[in-house]
């Protein structure tokens, strides 16, 4: 059996385009990449089709320069793309891994508009738009926020081995580029019945911010006053950029 080289190249380009379109049409693109990349990814799938057509039409004398191993490597992920659907990531149980877990530099000052607004407001309202910038600022300057009220929504996550049973965390997963760089971002919450809240359930929380010392760091902690169930948002992730 012999297959023309240009045909193999075109087939692969066609199926790779198809897998991108399939992911997009099934609404799974947001689970894999930041929405800002979706238009260029779709555009690249269209370009891949054009490339495939150009190779098929004009590349009749092309030599196939793909070894069997390379072909196998190309086939497997295509089957994953076409045969399965991506999952949504929940926040890790290890709350310590939050990206805003330590104020590493006292000189840090991201004086963006949401941060300046949050510093001046009481209550501090955390939305999807200001989620990362304000929480990051709270970790950098916990004393500036101590005593203020806060409103925040997110997923409740319990630590694997909490030092205090009344502790849990409210968090969201943050995606910058793709699923590979997802990191949990959130705040520690404290209230009496923390352990009774189901893991990874979605809640709206209102409370008062206090500055607590943990592992030689001063971190912001929400002293919960009010908590209510909310439905899981349509888009579980937040996007800082």
């Amino acid at each position, binding site marked *: 059996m012999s*297959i023309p080289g240009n045909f193999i190249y075109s087939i692969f*380009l066609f199926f790779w385009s198809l897998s991108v379109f399939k992911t997009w049409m099934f609404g799974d693109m947001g689970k894999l990449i930041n929405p800002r990349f979706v238009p260029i990814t779709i555009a690249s799938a269209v370009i891949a089709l054009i490339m495939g057509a150009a190779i098929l039409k004009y590349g009749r004398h092309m030599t196939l320069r793909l070894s069997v191993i390379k072909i196998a490597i190309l086939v497997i*992920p295509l089957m994953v793309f076409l045969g399965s659907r991506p999952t949504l990531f929940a926040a890790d149980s290890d709350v310590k891994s939050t990206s805003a877990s330590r104020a590493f530099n006292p000189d840090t000052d991201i004086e963006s508009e949401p941060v300046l607004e949050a510093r001046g407001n009481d209550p501090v309202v955390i939305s999807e738009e200001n989620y990362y910038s304000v929480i990051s600022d709270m970790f950098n300057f916990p004393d500036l926020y101590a005593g203020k009220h806060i409103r925040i929504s997110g997923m409740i996550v319990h630590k694997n081995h909490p030092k205090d049973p009344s502790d849990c965390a409210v968090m969201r997963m943050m995606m910058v580029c793709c699923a*590979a760089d997802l990191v949990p971002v959130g705040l520690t919450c404290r209230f009496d019945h923390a352990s009774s809240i189901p893991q990874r359930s979605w809640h709206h929380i209102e409370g008062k911010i206090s500055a607590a010392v943990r592992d030689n760091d001063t971190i912001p902690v929400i002293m919960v006053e009010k908590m209510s169930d909310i439905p899981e948002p349509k888009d579980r992730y937040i996007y800082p950029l």
Partner: protein
Amino acid sequence: MNSSGQFLKTQKLPFKGKKILLPVIVFAFICISSVEIQWYEYDLEVLQKILTVFTGIIMQSFPFLMAGAMLSSAIHEFVPDRLVAKFFAAEGKRTTVAALFAAFLFPVCDCAAVPAAAGFFRKKFPLSATVMFMLASPMINPVVIASTWYAFGDFRILLARIGLGICIPVIIGLAAGKVFRDSGVLKKNRAEESSGVARGHCGCADGGCDHEHHHDHGAEGSRLSRMFAHAGTDFVSVLPFIIAGAAVSSLLQVLVPKNTLLGGISGVTLQTAVMIGFAFVLSICSTSDAFFARSFMSHVSTGPALAFMTAGPMIDFKNTLMMSEYFRKRFILFIAGSVALSVFITTIAIQFIFFRGL
């Protein structure tokens, strides 16, 4: 195409993969269907996470890899050799500035930089300038600068990253220019593509060609058609390396407890070495690695975090595999070794000079 304007008989090559492809396809289907089987909840979750990270990396690399292949191909087709010879004939300040300026204007990650650099090499751009472009473009483009600022909000870290993103590529580029001046860096088959004797994929380079056709990239038609055809083959040729890199990266990202590992490491020197190793195996995109580095800050000092953000964009597992498609082994080892060493030394120095105690 022959003299009468008709396409000659299509060249067919023996395709020996079908015997191996069948078990591969069966294996892949078993993998996929296992996702649907409710084994233990934990195992299912981990497998799904690995697959999601894996597909996420590939999906995100897709447009950038294509941009690199298109740029490489466009240069190949549309930039005349005499123009390169006229403006970039000699290594010097002008080519250094031009390389860094191009790196700044090319807002992509290393997925695009490697095929683009291969295109520059093929077109006989100066070696040092091309190395500078390849190493600097994932570091100093506006998207990376913005994400670093947003993640850290600290001018000193931002300036340190930009400074390293300029100084290290310039030093390594100049050194590569001296070391590889006479030997060349492209693999034999890739170098032949630009030789004018055996351009393209037509197989004439192997001596097995007895037909008569237009000898320009193995593809016929207009320059634009050839550009698309050439970029397409480049794209498909490099894609397996991205896939292999993504597979290893996704396994390590989900299975290796990074923060737990880092929690037990003390001392800036050891932390820096480990962070360079992490940067290599995790293969995080340069546009998002600042946020990743920020998440490590609860366990490591600023210098090691900077090492992570500097080494990763220049050399990681994914782009090393990709480089192996284009470049000679000696050149790849030179780049990897010099990047690791220079990042190790400079970031430790920066830690002790500017970030002592942080």
